[in-house]
């Protein structure tokens, strides 16, 4: 039973014996939820759900409030109102986002029929054709939490769907191929790989920060350009260029150091690392060419 104890500015509202912080009122007003057909009680429930999703149970009220204030409230209200079945909201959503959805699909999938299928499929999911037991539509928009922009979320959903459907298989194949090629090349060399090499490399890689490993993987494994990586991380291209240089250089130093700790002398360590560099260069180029086609 809802027992809304509504009152003046700075107070807690009680809904079903839950305490609702006063600032929920402010946020609800900002979200324009009323305009989209989202009631305050539902909005409050959504805010609580989002807090549970991203914060631990012992988060302080201030941390919870901080999270709530950082959300894209209007987009959240719109998305959830759509998910609740509000026609006004859905119309609004269509006007603003339908074209962007199809444009983004086109940019992601390139090939027109694939793009159309991708966009149509997401559109269906957003509208919600599946039904729950009580006959309500289940819309994908119900999973939007307002951490990022709604448009960014749509693009990301499209991209993830695209990768899942069309790219994952081909990558598995090429990765296997890559490993095979590397192994074959190893087999061809005269000097077998030193058993100390792998653990030294692993140790050095572990010392890198997550972002550093991300940069390395993006640059060397994915073959992304500096500009693309810079865009992903929100820094200037020259920053990425410097970082790649620095990370690679320090990685070499650390591996050599690790190898020496494991008993290899400096010269042998340097050689072990330098082995087959020409092959590596060719491999990178081949991969880059692959990507372009």
């Amino acid at each position, binding site marked *: 039973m809802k027992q809304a104890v509504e*009152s003046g500015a700075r107070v807690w509202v009680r809904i079903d014996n839950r305490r609702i912080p006063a600032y929920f009122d402010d946020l609800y007003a900002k979200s324009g939820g009323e305009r989209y057909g989202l009631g305050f009680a539902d909005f409050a429930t959504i805010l609580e759900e989002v807090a549970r999703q991203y914060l631990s149970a012992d988060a302080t009220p201030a941390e919870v*409030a901080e999270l709530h204030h950082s959300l894209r409230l209007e987009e959240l209200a719109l998305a959830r109102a759509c998910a609740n079945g509000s026609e006004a909201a859905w119309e609004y959503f269509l006007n603003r986002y339908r074209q962007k959805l199809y444009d983004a699909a086109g940019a992601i999938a390139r090939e027109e029929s694939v793009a159309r299928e991708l966009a149509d499929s997401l559109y269906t999911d957003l509208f919600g054709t599946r039904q729950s037991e009580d006959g309500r539509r289940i819309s994908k928009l119900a999973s939007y939490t307002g951490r990022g922009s709604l448009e960014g979320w749509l693009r990301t959903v499209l991209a993830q769907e695209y990768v899942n459907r069309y790219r994952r298989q081909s990558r598995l194949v090429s*990765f296997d191929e890559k490993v095979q090629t590397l192994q074959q090349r190893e087999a061809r060399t005269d000097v077998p790989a030193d058993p100390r090499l792998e653990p030294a490399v692993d140790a050095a890689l572990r010392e890198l920060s997550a972002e550093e490993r991300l940069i390395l993987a993006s640059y060397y494994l994915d073959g992304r350009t500096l500009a693309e990586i810079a865009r992903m991380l929100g820094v200037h291209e020259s920053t990425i260029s410097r970082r790649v240089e620095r990370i690679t250089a320090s990685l070499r130093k650390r591996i050599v150091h690790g190898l020496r700790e494991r008993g290899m002398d400096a010269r042998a360590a340097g050689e072990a690392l330098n082995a087959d560099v020409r092959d590596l260069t060719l491999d990178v180029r081949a991969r880059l060419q692959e990507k372009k086609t």
Partner: protein
Amino acid sequence: MAELPKIVEQRLAQQAAAGNAGHPDANLLAAFAEHALVERERAAVSAHLAQCADCRESLALAIASQPETELVAAHATKRDWFAEWRWVGAAAAACCVVGIVLQVQPPQAPVVRKIEQTVASPANTPPVREDRNAQPRVQIAGARRSKKVERIGLAEVVAPAPGMVAVQEHMAAVQEQPALKEKATLEVRPPETTSAEVTIRPNEPSVLPAPSTTLLPPASKAQAFRAETSEDAQTKKETQALQALRARAGAFAQGMITRAPVMPTRAKSALSNASVLWSINASPTAAGNPRGVVERSTDAGKTWEAVPLGDNVSFRAVASSGQNVWAGGTGGTLFHSSDAGAHWERITVADENGTLTGTIITIDAADPKLIKITTRSGERWTSPDGGRRWTQQ
């Protein structure tokens, strides 16, 4: 560019194959791209991305699917600086200004870290992220502008920085202005294009048209500005100053700069007004208080203290409006304070027909003069004079 030793590449790639669980969902990944995650989350997502090629690809595709836009701050050139000057010159004819000082901050952790530090200090009321949904009130000053301030501000904005620019309203300049002519409402709305937009709605009738594109290099910003000839000088000033802000916001959303443009800090003070929070604890607390005790918090909800108002009463409703606080509960008990709870007065709710003796369950005190209460049994009582006389509806 240095090459990566083959063995390193191999180990890096093999790490990707191992343990691909924990893919971030679209919410996290999109927020990552827009730099809306806190440090802890960002590190976690980075760690996963480092070892998951699929998620890296998704992220790259999502980012790349945005229409091409130009970097603003990071690629500002001397040529742009002159364009800015012409722009300033045009504005010089107008009589009003918003002083915006754009500061170049040293490269440091993104704004999210700053917010985290804010959270740690106990004295803070819930901090507001100005760059999101805050609706700050920009006080547009009506006095003479400070030419120097504007020149410094704009020169700094176009100084080549490694993409890290913070925008702050120069509060001192605004506060000095004696006559505050106009208020505008600043709103961050869902983007028309792909970047976060800042549109201004002055509370006066003149409405600024939303821009058709958000991210413009300074030169074309000047052109767009000149095209809006229908505005008067006052709103032109707002447009200029806030276009700079908007461009930063757009650049930020694009992931071009990592420091969020800081909206006028007046917003923060308006929204984080330290005020007393009231509540009724609905369940027995650790301190052993029975259900129905009025509680007060002066630190935005972090800690609560019980307000003893009576032994045999269990409170069900509390309402406050400014300094006025009302608390009602069993047995028709109603208490009122006009000084935020320092002193209380017991109120008897009665009219010529009888007295309220049931349990008060709601109190509407939004208007301190007109108090409305309802009881569990459905009685409705109103007082038109702040609680002296009552009538049952």
